[in-house]
């Protein structure tokens, strides 16, 4: 089966790749583009560890075909920091000790960023429901919710 040629933008950089028609965006990010920040926890869209933004929309990259990225903009956790300056969400995750093993952290960060772009002043309940698609087994979510609320407050003030 011949491969598909895709031209896309990842974290602001023009990227081209060849992929199988059946390959997911997650596979291509991890195995062809070399961006292993997005993780595969389930491959079925249930855990959110592979969360990325596609033209500003939060998606599970394991449920998106790599070919669908043609002409679109992909944002991953690797694009969150500005050079050596961490994004406020990243800083707050560290300050609040909102990670233990860290496997869900990239997905949580991408999802939280997508939330705050839409809703800069979410309630605790809104944060909890927005992040309900991102499983974390270590923290019990307490410190993650606090980190996101604190980041939102700081971003509103900034």
């Amino acid at each position, binding site marked *: 089966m011949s491969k598909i040629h895709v031209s896309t933008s990842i974290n602001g950089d023009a990227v081209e790749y060849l992929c199988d028609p059946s390959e997911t965006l997650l596979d291509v990010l991890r195995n062809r583009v070399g961006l292993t920040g997005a993780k595969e926890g389930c491959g079925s869209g249930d855990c959110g560890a592979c969360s990325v933004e596609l033209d500003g929309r939060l998606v599970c990259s394991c449920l998106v075909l790599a070919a669908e990225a043609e002409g679109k903009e992909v944002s991953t*956790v*690797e694009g969150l920091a500005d050079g050596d300056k961490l994004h406020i969400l990243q800083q707050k995750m560290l300050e609040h*000790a909102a990670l233990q093993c*860290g496997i869900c952290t990239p997905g949580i960060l991408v999802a939280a960023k997508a939330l705050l772009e839409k809703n800069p002043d979410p309630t605790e309940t809104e944060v909890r429901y927005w992040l309900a698609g991102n499983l974390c087994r270590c923290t019990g*979510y307490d410190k993650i919710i606090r980190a996101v609320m604190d980041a939102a407050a700081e971003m509103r003030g900034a």
Partner: protein
Amino acid sequence: MVTEYKEGAAGTEYSKRDFKVVGTRPPRPDGVDKVTGRALFGADLTAPGMLHATILRSPHAHARIVSIDISGALALDGVKAVVTSNDFVKQGSSGNQDTLDNCMARGKVFYDGHAVAAVAAVSVKVANEALKLIKVEYEVLPHVTDVDAGMLDSAPVLHEGRKFRNIPEGNNANVSGYWEFGHGDTDAGFAKADIIVERSFKTAATHQGYIEPHATLATMGPDGRGEIWACTQGHYMVRDMAAAFVGMDTSQLRVTPSEIGGGFGGKTTVYLEPVALALAKKSGRPVKMVMTREEVFRASGPTTSSSTDVKIGMTKDGRITAGQAKLRYQGGAYPNITAMLGAMTAFAAYDLDAVQTLAWNVLTNRPKQAAYRAPGAPMAIYAVESVVDELCQKLDLDPIDVRLMNAAKKGTLSSYGPTFDEIGLVATLEAAKAHPHYAAPLGPNQGRGVSCGFWFNFAGNTSVSMGINEDGTVSVIEGNPDIGGSRASISMMAAEELGIPFDKVRTIVGDTNSIGFNDVTDGSRVTFSVGLATIKAARAAIKNMCGRAAQVWGIDADAVDWVDGAAVPMGHNAGEFPPMTLAEIAKDSAKTGGPIAGHHEVNADGAGVSFGVHLVDVEVDPETGFTEIKRYTVFQDAGKAIHPDYVEGQMQGGAVQGIGWALNEEYIYGEDGKLQNAGFLDYRIPVASDLPMIDAVILEIPNPGHPYGVRGVGETGIVPPLAAVANGVSHAAGVRMTELPMSPPRILAAIDGAK
């Protein structure tokens, strides 16, 4: 000779001190890597020329393997190697042989998902195509998956002809373990009771549910030297198992641990690593293996399911006169000791004159269980704490007062044998009673649950090494994968002992060739054992540095002390020379005798038990049977919290895993013996919107066995939630719940049944 070992004797380690670094909350050293996506987990590594391997798994719950024909797979383009059980070495110990047989079935498949063969090929796609070309002829056998059914004489036998130790007459051939614990005369105790409650409980098997599936990358050249990269709780364990299974010396296999995406006990054994190594050996190429989520559920260890009878007698004023528990656990197709741990922990929170626990492990056609956070304790203590709650309810007594009246304390003969030293149960119960949560009003359809929890905590073999760098910084190597922030706590203890700032220390987890042996990261042992070894390694370095300063000053080494990160002359030399800092000593180290380092190796003891108390308010919807957690507070004795954020994190994470166990999570098997919910959609772990904030209250009752008083904190937190939530639901729903998970249909059925 005996006294030589006195220093290592537990119970003599703790001394009170004022901390400068310990107890603060610095950012974790691995944090930036983890928030930027730079941290490398099991599946994140690739190697030039790498192959991908996948596993053929049994579609049957129980079957004899008549034959395996791999020729079709080998003939497929792109296939480089195929292995079956024939490619592994027979093991000397039954425990290792069981682990190997679980990695690759030998003669029989024991459960749906049991590995039968593995293929390494140029891509996952080709490997999966090749699996379809492997012809396995099975003779399907009757199966059993339920714990009580497994103990019936009519149950199909899994391991025909295999004898297990110490099994009393009258048990069938699937009973692989039997244990008794306790003391005193329970008959006499029950005779003294004003009221006796006797109930039976069941809990479902749950999975550790780490978000990172098992993954590994192995290489092995024709020279017989191998390398493994793996997400594991113990890379020395991986090295020893994988080397033994393929038949090579451990020195020729180096294992490097990746960042680990959760384990909770589930990554304390091997599944893929020996298979990847055997395929690498056969193909001469690096081989990567990554489980799918379905494979994680079907073929990596969940915990045991249980069926327990508890009988407790109490006087009218709340004194327990006797306790008895009969615990039956199944942990899949191979023997395990989880039921034993359940029997030891069931009544650990109580000071009893008469207590007896009996435990059975029965083999069933399910995946080989793996440790899950305080293995065996949550389900045993759930049953006991449910009955204690019912007794309080019947006698109209306050559940915390009753627990305080009967609480184990220093000097109590524990239900599992030894007499307790300093323990924190009473302080923890008092903290719970005094907390505003306990006095807060409840709304309609709401109930409050209380439960105690206990875990032993373990210590074990540990090696730590540290180098004092010429710029005055310190590099620490430990050998235990960092599963919850231990690089932070180890760096903090090194900084504390050396008297330097936290940011002058960097701790890494070395590979198997970096330092001496280490037991796996389990039993809540790392902050305790690795911390203890780090403090001792620092003391060795300090002794060396004091000697250097003494030489420079021309005084006796004995006349030099270490104060706030500097060598200081003492005695009649006091004040004669200005303090010489670590950085000053390190700068001149080449001129004063060479590099300065400290190391310590020990089989640590004295871990110190940990108790916790959980309070929960739940609301049960009588129309749907749905339970909402309204408020949750965790109280736990940490001995000394090195990094309080991560202690709180352990308490909160454990509580939420326990909430999932209580309300949602369960392995569901069909009549066909196949797992019906092998995915996160149908096996539902708690999500953010299911929960309130989890308040964590840390108590610090120093452990005599650790220089800073540390107790392990990782496991105890999962123990109380099962009973705490069940007690809350029982009060809210007005009916005693005796089976987990308390899913909405079960709660509705119980409410209907009580009408």
